[in-house]
């Protein structure tokens, strides 16, 4: 068991535990914290694969901006009421087992696929190479995303404004 494999299993265990906690938690703030745990674990997995820039962006943007937005909205809306989960009988006895069976089957087939396991990544990816590709090949989508962010800001402002 190399160090890389050990790190992978630890981080994967944390990620899956966080995802299960998101589903099982009754208060939405607990689900939000569980999702933050999942995102940090995924950032660790990106680091393990050598994607340094993506790991940093994941923590800064996803964990530091999007999840903070979620927590603020949960606080604003006072979403403190715990939801009572009475699953319908169909969901509990047919839906949930079928969903778990589908999950296990997908895991089986994905795990059996002859993925290119032999290609070992030669160390971390240089951010400069990523930036070169982003600003040369993908410059048009890049500019479009800046427009998208502007539209999102305008949309959020217009939607959340109180009618005065």
């Amino acid at each position, binding site marked *: 068991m190399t160090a890389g494999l050990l790190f992978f299993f630890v981080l994967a265990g944390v990620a899956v535990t966080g*995802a299960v906690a998101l589903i099982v938690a009754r208060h939405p703030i607990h689900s939000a914290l569980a*999702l933050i745990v999942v995102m940090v674990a995924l950032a660790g997995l990106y680091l*393990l694969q050598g994607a340094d820039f993506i790991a940093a962006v994941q923590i800064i943007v996803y964990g530091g901006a999007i999840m903070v*937005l979620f927590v603020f909205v949960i606080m604003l809306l006072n979403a403190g009421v715990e939801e009572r989960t009475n699953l319908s009988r169909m969901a509990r006895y047919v839906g949930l087992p079928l969903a778990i069976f589908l*999950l296990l089957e997908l895991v089986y087939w994905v795990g059996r696929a002859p993925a290119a396991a032999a290609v070992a990544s030669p160390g971390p990816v240089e951010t400069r190479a990523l930036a070169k590709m982003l600003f040369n090949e993908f410059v048009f989508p890049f500019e479009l995303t800046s427009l998208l962010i502007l539209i999102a800001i305008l949309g959020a402002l217009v939607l959340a404004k109180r009618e005065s």
Partner: protein
Amino acid sequence: MVPASYYLVLSTVLFGLGVIGFVLKRNIITIFMAIELMLNAVNLAFVTASRSLGQLQGQVFVFFVIVVAAAEAAVGLAIIILVARNRQTLNVEHLDLMKH
């Protein structure tokens, strides 16, 4: 070295858990968080594919997915605030104005 299929299996499991959360939960904010979980699982698959194929396009795509998810979260949460203000509830079972 960790084989790529391990990462893909983890991505599948996380995606499946996101789907289960999306279907089971009743609070609209929690449902939205399950969607974010699905997006994260797909990001993991993209980074894994980028590493195993030796191409950088996968990571560029992850960058775009994160940016679009941020914009979508902003607008989606604004919509949720509006809905909560108008209907005074966050339970999706009560948000059935278009039924009948």
